[in-house]
């Protein structure tokens, strides 16, 4: 569905998987900044989501240079062809068997060539054939009996369907796409897969930026998912064995990740540790590149001025209320702090609607720990307005890429206590170079899922004024020197110019 089409040429096409402009968050703001900051380019955005009802309205104003926006839903059953009895072609499914084999044993092999081309999904095996043909049924039966004999068949069946069905949706997006000069995907996964198909179909360069490590995050999602129940008794399971259904999903995303790495012309990460992980997952080192996020310092000068003399006894966690942000650990930490500093407040600043059941659980935890007066869910807030009111910002996530909120916090002069994930260590202690290190620490890094370590750090920062002051200074200097918005935009400007002028396709 095309929502915006200003009938202008598209220079850069961004593929937003479940992010901009429908969901607020780190990646969405990053896309917004990129579009706003590079007004000399015309941008198009293809939004890829799960199902229409999972998203609300557009959350950002449409900028002048966003000339095209289309939305596509991968799990919408209404867009599927109607069921009919089909025989299916034996030869096609031989191919599918081969591909499956590849997905199962994909370590260190190149991605099958035919999957690069969208024709495969239109001519070789049609969506109808996959969904309704007898051959497809036999294929699923065989695989089940080979690999998943003791899982509930209905779960297996729907896993196979749900893993594969979106592929055709993605392939069909390529067909209707307008001409573009360059495709840029801020993640691997379905978006990376789509970008790969576009590159092969349109012969345009493909840039890949990874904020977190998508494959890893999906792994966390999948492993913590309860929608796939292991119905076997505990003694039937081997220790550490990942259930077959979860394995299917994980392998699938690993496969998609490899495909994106193989096709992309440049693989950009936000910090060096992430770059190393990409290489370990199969990204060719010569394609990798680090471009850290930047923050508009000028927007936070006001916030610095507004600060009062004393450190407010308030800890702000800026982030969506979802399991990956591990809000529960934050609540537990606040409980420990409140035992020492009864007036302490923990603010959870971010949208709560993404995972209603998790939000409910968090609220229950607040009640159970008797923190009604201390913990507040403020929903979405403008960050520059919040920063002067908090003494400290925090992140308790179990996985992060390069969290923008840390940079924003620094720009506003607020120290950060964070779990040791993503680039947090590098940001807080200075890890870019010697000069960066010499600036000193701008906060504290604690182990993941450890409320007492968090609480200790919180108490230190809320009570020790000298420490707070030195961290405050380090934060401001670091962000101004190394993480300015201008530097970030400039790096992308150079990249875009280089690649979209053709002749530079790797």
């Amino acid at each position, binding site marked *: 569905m095309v929502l915006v089409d200003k009938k202008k040429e598209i220079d850069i096409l961004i593929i937003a998987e479940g992010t901009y402009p429908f969901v607020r968050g780190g990646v969405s703001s990053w896309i917004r900044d990129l579009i706003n900051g590079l007004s000399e380019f015309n941008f198009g955005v293809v939004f890829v989501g799960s199902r229409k009802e999972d998203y609300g309205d557009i959350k950002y104003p449409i900028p002048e240079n966003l000339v095209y926006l289309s939305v596509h839903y991968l799990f919408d059953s209404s867009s599927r062809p109607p069921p009919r009895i089909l025989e299916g072609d034996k030869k096609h499914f031989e191919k599918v068997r081969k591909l499956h084999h590849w997905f199962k044993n994909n370590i260190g092999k190149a991605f099958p060539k035919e999957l690069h081309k969208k024709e495969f999904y239109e001519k070789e095996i049609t969506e109808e054939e996959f969904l309704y*043909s007898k051959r*497809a049924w036999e294929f699923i039966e065989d695989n089940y009996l080979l690999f998943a004999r003791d*899982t509930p068949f209905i779960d297996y069946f729907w896993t196979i369907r749900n893993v594969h069905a979106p592929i055709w949706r993605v392939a069909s997006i390529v067909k209707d796409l307008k001409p573009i000069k360059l495709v840029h995907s801020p993640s691997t996964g379905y*978006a990376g897969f789509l970008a790969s198909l576009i590159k092969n179909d349109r012969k345009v360069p493909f840039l890949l930026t990874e904020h977190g490590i998508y494959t890893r995050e999906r792994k966390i999602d999948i492993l913590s998912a309860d929608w796939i129940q292991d*119905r076997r008794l505990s003694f039937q399971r081997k220790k550490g064995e990942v259930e077959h259904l979860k394995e299917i999903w994980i392998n699938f995303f690993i496969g998609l990740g490899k495909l994106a790495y193989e096709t992309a012309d440049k693989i950009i990460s936000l910090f060096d540790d992430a770059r190393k992980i990409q290489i370990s997952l199969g990204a060719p080192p010569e394609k990798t590149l680090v471009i850290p996020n930047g923050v508009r310092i000028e927007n936070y000068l006001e916030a610095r001025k507004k600060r009062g003399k004393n450190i407010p006894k308030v800890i702000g966690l800026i982030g969506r209320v*979802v399991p990956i942000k591990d809000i529960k650990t934050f609540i537990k930490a606040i409980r420990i702090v409140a035992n020492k500093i009864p007036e302490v407040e923990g603010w959870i600043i971010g949208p709560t609607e993404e995972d209603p059941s998790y939000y409910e659980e968090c609220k229950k935890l607040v009640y159970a720990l008797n923190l009604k007066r201390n913990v507040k869910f403020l929903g979405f807030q403008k960050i520059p307005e919040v920063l002067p009111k908090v003494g400290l910002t925090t992140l308790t996530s179990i996985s992060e*890429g390069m969290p923008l909120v840390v940079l924003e916090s620094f720009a506003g002069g607020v120290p950060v206590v964070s779990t040791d994930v993503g680039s947090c260590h590098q940001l807080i202690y200075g890890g870019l170079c010697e000069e960066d290190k010499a600036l000193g620490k701008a906060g504290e890094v604690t182990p993941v899922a450890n409320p007492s370590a968090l609480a200790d750090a919180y108490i230190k920062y809320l009570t020790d004024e000298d420490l707070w002051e030195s961290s405050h200074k380090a934060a401001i200097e670091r962000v101004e020197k190394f993480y300015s918005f201008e530097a970030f935009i400039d790096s992308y400007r150079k990249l875009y110019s280089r690649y979209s002028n053709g002749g530079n396709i790797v």
Partner: protein
Amino acid sequence: MAGISFELKRILEDNKLTSLFLSFTYSISLSAGPWIISILAIIFAGIIASKSSNNPEVVRQYQVVITYITAISLIVSGPLQLLFSRYISDRLFEKEVWRVLPNFIGALTVSMALGFLVGLLIVLFGMKKLPPTFALLFLFSLTLSSGFWIVNVLLTSLKSYKYILFAFFIGFGSMMITAPIFSKAGITGLLFSFFVGMGIAFSLLVGYIFYSYTSSKLIEFDFLNLKKIYLSLAVSGLFYNLGIWIDKFVFWFSPLTGQQVIGPFKASPVYDIPIFLAYLSIAPGMGIFFLKLEAEFAEYYDRYYSAVREGATLERIYEMGYELVMAVRGLIQEVFRIQGMAVIIVLLTEKEVFKWFNLSPLYLPLFNILLLGTSLQLLVMCILALLFYFDLRKEAVYLTISFAILNFLLSIISIKLGPYFYGYGFFLSLLITFLFGTYLLRRFLYELHYRTFMLI
């Protein structure tokens, strides 16, 4: 970063397979209920009439009129019967109990309006010479009957057989009492007693429905909401009822076999008596079928779909599927056996029975072939009920349409071929339909798992 958050659980909850609940009771209301009731009603009416009037001509007229009312009302309400029954089971499954009453009133209105319109056409174009009171009574009785089948469908869907029986008992009881009194007024009087009896039974049942269901709305036409219903059911319902009656109409209205009885109504003595006698012979087979369907088959059916729904392994699903196929086979075989025995008993005793009824033995060859025909009709009914059980709506449409067309054409041909071939059209059309139905059912069962999973 936020990718597509995998809310597979919600996606799973969306798919129809997990809400696979297809225990459709409407198959029963289709095949058995109206059929048994109408045969009984016609026979009863005959008995009542002959007991209360000593004019055989009046008795015959009365029986023919009742037969027409039954046939026309069944055909007119046919499209609604199944459609509405399925609508009700779906709503009850969705726990929308409050929709039952207003939509029942809606369906009743539509069905009665249709009956009234058809009746009006018959009255305007065929009853110019008849007394207006008779024409009015005919019109009202037809309208009432058209509504009556909807009442019957709802109550059989809800398995309230007891109340149907009770209301009938009262209704026909009142006919018994009133018929001798009114029969002094000839055919019009008898028809009046029929109308009153029907009215009593109808009121009792409607009253019972009102008593059982509450709703803030009085009337609603949600059962015509295209998103919630299956039009194919209307097609099957219409053609099924048409198929059942079409051979009779052919014989009534053929100049060779039909004769005028009253007004526009014709009858065919040569065909009518044997066919109704033949229909009586399928009562035991039908009883066995529904008993086994409800008791045994339904259990295997539930077990299979529960295994699918509740996450059994594929081997287990295969096993349950095999048992289900066996249950289907057993069910058909059982009906075959019982009906076979019934046919043999009838064949051995038919001469005596005919004597006892004062019927000419000349009818016997025709009766025998019709006997085989009605037995096959029972089997077709079983197959149709099973098709609905498995929600094979498209197959049901094919089967009912082919039955109606074949019965129509072959009955015409049998008349053309001469008296020796009477009844063979009916028999042959049912034989072909039965084989076709068996083929459709087999094809489905052969691909049971594929169709269950892949074609949702």
